[in-house]
């Protein structure tokens, strides 16, 4: 069935599919783990039972999403070898140790303390349990550090030499790890996960507020989420801008594609708001542009020279249509999020944060916004890395495993089928849990079948079976 199709293209599709799906889950659980640590910390400090209720509410959701993240993550660690064997052989010397450190310092940490976090509230003291929650959160952040360092090295390699057989040899690990794009990608991605979690928490809060605007748990959730939106989203826009500057310095061709610049503009490039990129003819059709704004954004100088894709051989260009539009989707959502934050501040000022139904409905709709923005951003940076796996040095076409198209086609179909059914179901369960309101002291927890996460520490609650 797949005989005529390019095996490398199928391998790319499969990797893209599995990694996009996978990253949806840590996008949520990285922020959620930290949020759970904050909730538990606030409960310990203030003794306000609302925080414990919210902890118990979100920890159930966390458990489901985290499990999906783990099993989809194992796929990634084997997919480098199964489908990108040449890349693994040549680049394993550099990337391998970074991934090994991720396993040793992060995966084991989160997995090791997850059991106590989810099931151990009755078995260890409060402070020990809190430490376990914090360590799981720390584990997720350490994980981001290593994987983003590895990914950033692929984008902006440094600290290496290339041996006679084409194998990359690391020369200086500090240079490898702290390569030029790493700090920017790290900050931008971690903030993105926190923003994503905020909008999900906000959406759930808003959902329950629409049913009952006096619901104290919903009010607490919504308020916390909207503070995040108001404060962190502007920071994220700055972080994104900074990453843009860095990308222009090290991967200008990627920026050309993202901006839709086929022509060169020695005196300042326009911002192409929308258009239809035609890569065959190397021109932007039906473009709506704002003069000088492109250069202002990309190099912070309205008259800054920006060159176009026409100066780059066609075989070295990334797919423009994909990254031009994915970038706009990400930025567009960022703007919407900024707007939400601003409105929330205004509403708070008027003491009406929970009282505008239209804003609550908007918050519900904006729930998945972070996931869309994150996915669009990753598509931009990764498809923008094409046609290279190691930017400028190793082509994607030279990176794939010696597998025939039917083999990869079959596995791709299998992944698509399993992921949509299994993870689709998981997401459905997650939504069902979100549709339930966090009650006072969760009396339902003790009576519902299933893993009792935290039976409560007060003696009275412990007697309930």
């Amino acid at each position: 069935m797949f005989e005529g199709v390019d095996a490398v293209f199928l391998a790319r599709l499969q990797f893209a599919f599995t990694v996009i799906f996978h990253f949806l889950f840590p996008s949520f659980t990285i922020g959620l783990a930290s949020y759970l640590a904050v909730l538990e910390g606030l409960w310990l400090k203030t003794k306000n039972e609302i925080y414990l209720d919210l902890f118990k509410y979100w920890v159930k959701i966390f458990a489901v999403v985290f499990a999906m993240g783990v099993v989809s993550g194992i796929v990634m660690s084997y997919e480098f070898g199964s489908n990108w064997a040449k890349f693994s052989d040549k680049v394993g010397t550099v990337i391998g140790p970074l991934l090994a450190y991720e396993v040793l310092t992060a995966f084991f940490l989160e997995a090791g303390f997850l059991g106590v976090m989810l099931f151990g509230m009755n078995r260890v003291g409060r402070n020990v349990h809190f430490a376990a929650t914090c360590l799981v959160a720390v584990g997720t952040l350490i994980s981001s550090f290593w994987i983003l360092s590895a990914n950033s090295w692929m984008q902006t390699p440094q600290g290496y030499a290339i041996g006679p057989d084409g194998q990359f040899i690391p020369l200086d690990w500090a240079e490898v790890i702290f390569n030029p794009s790493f700090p920017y990608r790290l900050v931008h991605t971690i903030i993105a996960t926190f923003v994503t979690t905020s909008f999900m928490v906000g959406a759930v809060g808003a959902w329950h507020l629409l049913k009952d605007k006096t619901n104290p748990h919903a009010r607490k959730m919504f308020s916390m989420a909207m503070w995040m939106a108001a404060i962190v989203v502007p920071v994220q826009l700055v972080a994104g801008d900074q990453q843009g500057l860095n990308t222009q310095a090290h991967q200008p061709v990627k920026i050309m594609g993202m901006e839709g610049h086929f022509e060169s503009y020695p005196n300042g490039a326009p911002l192409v708001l929308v258009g239809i990129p035609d890569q065959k003819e190397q021109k932007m059709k039906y473009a709506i542009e704002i003069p000088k704004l492109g250069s202002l954004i990309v190099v912070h100088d309205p008259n800054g020279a920006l060159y176009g894709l026409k100066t780059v051989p066609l075989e070295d260009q990334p797919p423009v249509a994909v990254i031009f539009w994915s970038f706009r989707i990400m930025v567009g959502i960022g703007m919407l999020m900024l707007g939400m934050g601003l409105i929330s501040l205004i509403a708070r000022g008027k003491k009406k944060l929970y009282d505008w139904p239209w804003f609550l409905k908007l918050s519900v709709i904006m729930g998945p916004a972070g996931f869309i923005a994150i996915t669009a951003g990753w598509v931009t940076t990764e498809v923008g890395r094409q046609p290279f796996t190691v930017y400028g040095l190793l082509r994607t076409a030279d990176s794939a495993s010696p597998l025939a198209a039917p083999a990869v086609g079959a596995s791709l179909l299998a992944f698509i089928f399993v992921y949509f059914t299994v993870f689709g179901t998981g997401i459905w369960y997650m939504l069902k849990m979100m549709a339930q309101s966090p009650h006072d002291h969760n009396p339902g927890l003790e009576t519902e079948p299933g893993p009792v996460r935290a039976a409560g520490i007060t003696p009275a609650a412990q007697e309930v079976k």
Partner: protein
Amino acid sequence: MHIDLTVIWAFIIAFAVFAYVVLDGFDLGIGILFPTIKVGERRDHAMNSIAPVWDGNETWLVLGGGGMLAAFPLAYSIILPATYPLIIAMLLGLIFRGVAFEFRWRDVKHQGFWDRAFFAGSLTAAICQGMTLGAIVQGIRVEDRAYAGGWLDWLTPFSLLTGASVVVAYTLLGSTWLVMKMEGDERDQARATAKRAFLGTLAAIAVVSLASLALDQNYVHRWFDMPGLILTALVPVTSIALAFAFWRAMKAGNDILPFVLTLALFFMTFIGLGISIYPNIVPPSITIWDAATAPISQSFMLYGVVVAVPLILGYTGWSYWVFRGKTGSHGYHH
């Protein structure tokens, strides 16, 4: 004295794989045994005995795979395409197994479906892991630093044998774990299963050992040539001693020894595997030195291993200790 980092890394990867096999072995074993456990509370108890630890256990698989990429990238990039359908099936099986832990509670109406998914996922993963082992031991065709065989080289009577053997061996791990963690009838059922699984595992070890000798004259030489025979003979001798100890422990009604002795038996099979293939990491043509990563990568990672692994073992042990004793249905319960 010149320290060979490659040899050290071979042992580290072997350790990671061993840790995975014995730890996730009992998780998968319980999954494979699920249909034999009565629906309802009994299944809940069995699941609950591993729910707090399964994720940490499975992480050793990521260390084994990721560690292989890091320490022996050539081997990783040959073995995975060579066993492509097995790897993909294993990953999909692990997905079903992993989500079942949570999903079966989230959807009580479909708990039966997720229980079957737990079983099928565990069984699939076990078979694929066993067959991958067989595919490696029987030799993989390599040309020019790449896999040069066909679509189905991994599928042979030998690999089917090793696949089945790992399934049986995991049920031994799973049932002896349940003997440790369950009480009353449930423990008695686990004992009965453990006895059968034990005999099955002994048979499997014997058959696989003989079959691997038949695969390649080299394997015969490694085991039977003097003076090495003096040492290699210790493996079957020790295994037989362990078998006796196991039988006596079961007869005495000991709850913990059967699991511990099973671990020791697995260790013997690992030593046997090492005797057969060391120093080849992709039999017959790729040695650990052929496949090793750059020395600067080996040493960089070694620092991490030396610091992190003792810590990992420490807090992992602590976590097991927190959930020590019989799983039961009081206190922490599911």
